[in-house]
C-alpha cells in the first residue's frame, strides 16, 4: 500500500483547506492536501456574493467592532465570541493578502477593493468580483499553492517537496496513536487503491453536510466527511442543530432544484413577491430587527441610493428570517406555480445593469431554466445551504479536543452561532484556515516524537466491505431515503414527533447501510464511493436530529414549530455530540456557553442585549460597563 509521510495533512481543498495548507507550508511544514475532487473544483467556487471584511473602503464608518456586532446579532448571540472577534479583526488582512497573490476584486473609484451590501451587514462590506467571488478565491489560493511549488522546485528541484495535492482521493478514517492523531487512511477514487498518510497533525476542511438533504445547494462532496471523521476520532461536534436554509434556491427545473440564487440579487435591488404580487417581507420583520429595517416600500426603495438616511429593505433580513417567511407564504397558498415565490429584479434595474452586476445569475437562469431574468421574475425557495455546527475547536488555533486534530471552515463549529451572515463564510475560511494551518504547524513543532500509525487493517476491511457483499442494499436508494427523511422531518420547520420519527428512520437506514453492496471494480466506482459516504451522512444526520430534538426553542437555523420563541435560557447552552469509534451510541449533551469578555459585551447597547440574555448575564454586563 502507498504510504506517505507528512507533517500536516489537510483534508479538503476548498478555501479553508488551501489557506491552511499554504500557512503550514509557509511555516516550513511538509504538507499534503487531500481532496475528493480535482484541484480547484471545491464547493467554494459556488460562493457568489463576496467575502465580508470591514475594510471601510466604501463606507469609512465600518470597522471590526461593527462587523463583530453584526456577526453576533446574525448568530443570535450563540456564536463563539472569540471566533467572531478574531474573524472581524483579521478578515481585512486576509482579503488584502489575496490581492498580493493575484486576486482581482472589483474596484472603487479611488482604486481600492469595492465592497457591496449584504443581508445582516450594516455597511457595504463584501469584497467581490461580480457574482463569482468564490471562484476568484479558490483560483487565487490554488495559484498560490502553485507559486509555492514553483518556489520549491527552484530550491529543492522538486515542486512537490513541501506541498503536494492528492486529488480525487477520499479519506475514510483518521488514525491514532493512543489519544493523539497519527495519520489518515483513504483510497484513490481513480484506481480504488488504498493510501496511507503518516502524519502527526490533520486539518479537517471538508465543508458541510448538505447531501443529507434532497433540496440543497451543496455538491456531492458535502457528505459530512470531516464531521464524521472527527466524531469517530473522538472529537466533539457542537451546534449541529443549526442548519442554514438559504432563502433563495432555484425551484425549477427539478434537476437543479436547490441551486443557489445569490443574495446579491436582493442586495442589488431584487424584491420578493408572492403570487398576489405583494412584497410580503414587510409582514415578517421580527421585533428584534424592527428599528433596523424599512417598514414601507418607499423607504426601502430609497435605501438603495441613500443608505445613510433610510433603513434597509426587509428582503435583506438575515437568511433564516427570509427563508422562514418564504416557507410560510408557500404554505399559506401564496406561492409561485412551481412551489416557490417570485424574486424579481427585471422591473427594478435596466437589463444592461442586470447582466453587468449579476452575470452568472443571468447565465444560470438562461441556460438551466430558460428564464431571462432581465425580462421575468425568478422562482425561488429555501434550500439547505450551510451547517453552522461542526467540530468544536479552540478559536485561536483551530485545535479540536483530540491532540493533532484541527478544523477550519464549514466543518468547524461556533463561529456563526445559530445563523451565518452571507459573506462571513469566505472570510471565515481565510481567517480560520490560516489559524488552523498555523495551529497544526505549532503543534508539530511542539511534539517530542512522531506518533505511530495504528488501525490500518480495520480501516481497510471497512472500506472493502461494500465490494465484497453481493446482493445487498442499493446505496443510491438508502441515500435517497435519508435525503427525503431529513428534508421532510428535520428540515426548515421542525416538530418533536417528526424529529423522533426521523431518528427511527435513520436507525433503520443505518442497518441497511451496513448491508450496502456495490458491483463493479475498484476503479472509479461511484456506487462504491457512495456506499462508503453513507456512513458519514448517517452519522451526521443522527447528530443533527438528536440535537434538534433536544433544543426546545427556535433560534437562527433551528425552528421548532412546538417551541416558536427564542429562550434566553437556551442561549447559554451548547449541545455537544460525541460517538464511539465504531460510530455507535451518538450522544448529545448540554454544555454551558462561556460568557462574553467584558470589552466585547460592552460593544452592545443594553436594550439590544435584553432581547437575548438572561437576567443573570445582564447583571454581568452592568458590572462590566461600570468597570470600564
Amino acid at each position: 500500500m502507498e504510504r506517505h509521510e507528512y507533517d500536516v495533512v489537510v483534508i479538503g481543498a476548498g478555501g479553508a483547506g488551501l489557506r491552511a495548507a499554504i500557512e503550514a507550508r509557509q511555516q516550513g511544514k511538509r504538507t499534503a492536501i487531500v481532496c475528493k475532487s480535482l484541484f480547484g473544483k471545491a464547493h467554494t467556487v459556488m460562493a457568489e456574493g463576496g467575502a465580508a471584511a470591514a475594510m471601510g473602503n466604501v463606507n469609512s464608518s465600518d470597522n471590526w467592532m461593527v462587523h463583530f456586532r453584526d456577526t453576533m446579532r446574525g448568530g443570535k448571540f450563540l456564536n463563539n465570541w472569540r471566533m467572531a472577534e478574531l474573524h472581524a479583526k483579521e478578515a481585512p488582512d486576509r482579503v488584502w493578502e489575496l490581492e498580493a497573490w493575484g486576486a482581482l476584486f472589483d474596484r472603487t473609484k479611488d482604486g481600492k477593493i469595492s465592497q457591496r451590501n449584504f443581508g445582516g451587514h450594516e455597511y457595504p462590506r463584501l469584497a467581490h468580483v461580480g457574482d463569482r467571488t468564490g471562484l476568484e478565491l479558490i483560483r487565487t489560493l490554488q495559484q498560490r499553492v502553485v507559486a509555492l511549488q514553483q518556489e520549491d522546485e527552484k530550491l529543492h528541484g522538486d515542486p512537490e517537496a513541501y506541498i503536494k495535492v492528492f486529488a480525487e482521493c477520499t479519506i475514510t478514517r483518521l488514525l491514532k496513536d493512543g489519544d493523539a492523531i497519527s495519520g489518515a487512511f483513504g483510497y484513490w477514487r481513480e484506481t480504488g487503491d488504498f493510501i496511507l498518510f503518516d502524519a502527526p497533525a490533520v486539518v479537517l476542511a471538508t465543508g458541510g453536510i448538505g447531501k443529507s438533504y434532497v433540496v440543497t445547494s451543496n455538491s456531492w462532496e458535502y457528505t459530512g466527511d470531516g464531521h464524521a471523521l472527527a466524531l469517530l476520532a473522538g472529537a466533539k461536534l457542537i451546534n449541529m442543530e443549526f442548519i442554514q436554509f438559504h432563502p433563495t434556491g432555484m425551484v425549477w427545473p427539478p434537476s437543479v432544484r436547490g441551486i443557489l440564487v445569490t443574495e446579491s440579487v436582493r442586495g442589488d435591488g431584487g424584491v420578493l413577491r408572492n403570487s398576489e404580487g405583494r412584497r410580503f417581507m414587510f409582514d415578517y420583520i421580527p421585533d428584534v430587527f424592527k428599528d433596523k429595517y424599512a417598514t414601507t416600500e418607499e423607504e426601502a426603495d430609497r435605501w438603495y441610493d441613500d443608505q445613510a438616511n433610510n433603513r434597509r429593505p426587509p428582503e435583506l433580513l438575515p437568511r433564516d428570517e427570509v427563508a422562514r417567511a418564504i416557507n410560510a407564504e408557500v404554505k399559506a397558498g401564496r406561492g409561485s406555480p412551481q412551489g416557490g415565490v417570485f424574486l424579481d429584479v427585471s422591473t427594478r434595474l435596466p437589463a444592461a445593469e442586470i447582466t453587468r452586476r449579476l452575470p452568472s445569475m443571468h447565465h444560470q437562469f438562461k441556460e438551466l431554466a430558460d428564464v431571462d431574468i432581465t425580462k421575468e421574475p425568478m422562482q425561488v425557495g429555501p434550500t439547505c445551504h450551510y451547517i453552522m455546527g461542526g467540530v468544536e475547536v479552540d478559536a485561536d488555533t483551530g485545535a479540536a479536543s483530540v491532540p493533532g486534530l484541527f478544523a477550519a471552515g464549514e466543518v468547524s463549529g461556533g463561529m456563526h452561532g445559530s445563523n451565518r451572515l452571507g459573506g462571513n463564510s469566505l472570510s471565515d475560511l481565510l481567517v480560520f484556515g490560516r489559524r488552523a494551518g498555523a495551529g497544526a504547524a505549532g503543534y508539530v513543532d511542539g511534539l517530542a516524537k512522531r506518533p505511530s500509525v495504528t488501525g490500518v487493517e480495520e480501516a481497510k476491511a471497512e472500506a472493502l466491505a461494500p465490494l465484497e457483499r453481493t446482493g445487498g442494499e442499493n446505496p443510491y436508494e438508502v441515500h435517497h431515503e435519508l435525503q427525503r427523511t431529513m428534508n421532510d422531518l428535520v428540515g426548515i420547520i421542525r416538530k418533536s414527533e417528526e424529529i423522533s420519527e426521523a431518528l427511527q428512520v435513520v436507525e433503520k437506514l443505518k442497518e441497511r447501510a451496513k448491508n450496502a453492496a456495490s458491483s463493479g471494480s475498484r476503479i472509479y466506482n461511484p456506487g462504491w464511493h457512495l456506499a462508503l459516504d453513507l456512513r458519514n451522512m448517517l452519522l451526521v444526520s443522527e447528530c443533527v436530529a438528536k440535537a434538534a430534538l433536544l433544543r426546545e426553542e427556535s433560534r437562527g437555523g433551528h425552528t421548532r414549530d412546538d417551541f416558536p420563541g427564542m429562550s434566553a435560557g437556551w442561549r447559554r447552552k451548547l449541545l455537544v455530540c460525541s460517538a464511539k469509534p465504531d460510530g455507535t451510541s451518538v450522544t448529545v449533551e448540554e454544555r454551558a456557553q462561556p460568557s462574553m469578555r467584558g470589552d466585547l459585551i460592552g460593544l452592545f447597547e443594553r436594550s439590544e442585549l435584553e432581547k437575548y440574555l438572561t437576567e443573570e448575564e445582564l447583571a454581568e454586563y452592568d458590572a462590566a460597563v461600570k468597570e470600564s
Partner: protein
Amino acid sequence: MGYKAKFRIWRGEGGEGRLEDFTVEVNEGEVVLDVIHRLQATQTPDLAVRWNCKAGKCGSCSMEINGRPRLGCMTRMSTFEESETITVTPLRTFPVIKDLVTDVSFNYQKAREVPSFTPPADVKPGEYRMQQVDVERSQEFRKCIECFMCQNVCHVIRDHEENKPNFSGPRYFIRIAELDMHPYDVAERKEPAQEEHGLGYCNITKCCTEVCPEHIKITDNAIIPMKERVVDRKYDPLVWLGSKIFKRQR
C-alpha cells in the same frame, strides 16, 4: 412529460472500450448529467462520471455529447429530438481513466509551468490601487472554470499528441494574458509565451472560444493580443528600433 431516451455511452477502463446502448427515462427540465445519474442509480451503478456543482460553475462534468465538448450539467435534454440517439464520450484529448472520466493531469502540469503573479517587491498587501478599467481584461480570463474543454477541442493537441510537450493550450494562454495585462505584474511573459508555451502553434481557428462555457473571448481577447505583444517583442523591427532609441521604460 417523461419519455424514454436512447443513449450511447462510452464504457471502458483505459483507452480500450466501446459504446454501449442504454434506454433511460427523461423528465421535463432535465440535463444530460441528470440522465447519467439516473443510469447510475438504476442500471449501471459503476458508470464513472465527474461532476460537482451541477450549475456550470466548477467545470467538472466536461464530456463530448454528440461529438461536441459540452458540460453535462448545462446541456438540456430539450435541445435534442426525443427520437435522437445521444452519444456521450469522454474528452478525446486526454487518456481515459474509466468511462467518461479522463486523466487531465496534463493541464495541471502546464499550470505549474506558468510563472505565478509577480508583483513589485515594494508593494505591501492593502496598498494595491487599481482602476476598474485596468483590471477588467484580466477579470474576464479569471472567469475560467477550468473545464478544460478548450484544451480538449484544440486541434494542436487533439489531433497531434506529439505537440503536447511544446504547447500549453488556450487555458494557459489566457492565464499568461491575464498576468501580462495585470496592472501590477512585472514578469516578462511575451518571449516565454512564444518560446516555451507554444503560442505560435495556435492558428486562431477559434474552437476554444466556441466551446467556452463562460463565453470568454479566448482568441480575440487573449491569444491574439498576446500574439501582437509577441510581435512587438520579437518580430517588429520598428518597435524594436523604437525601444532601443527610447530606453525610457524600465
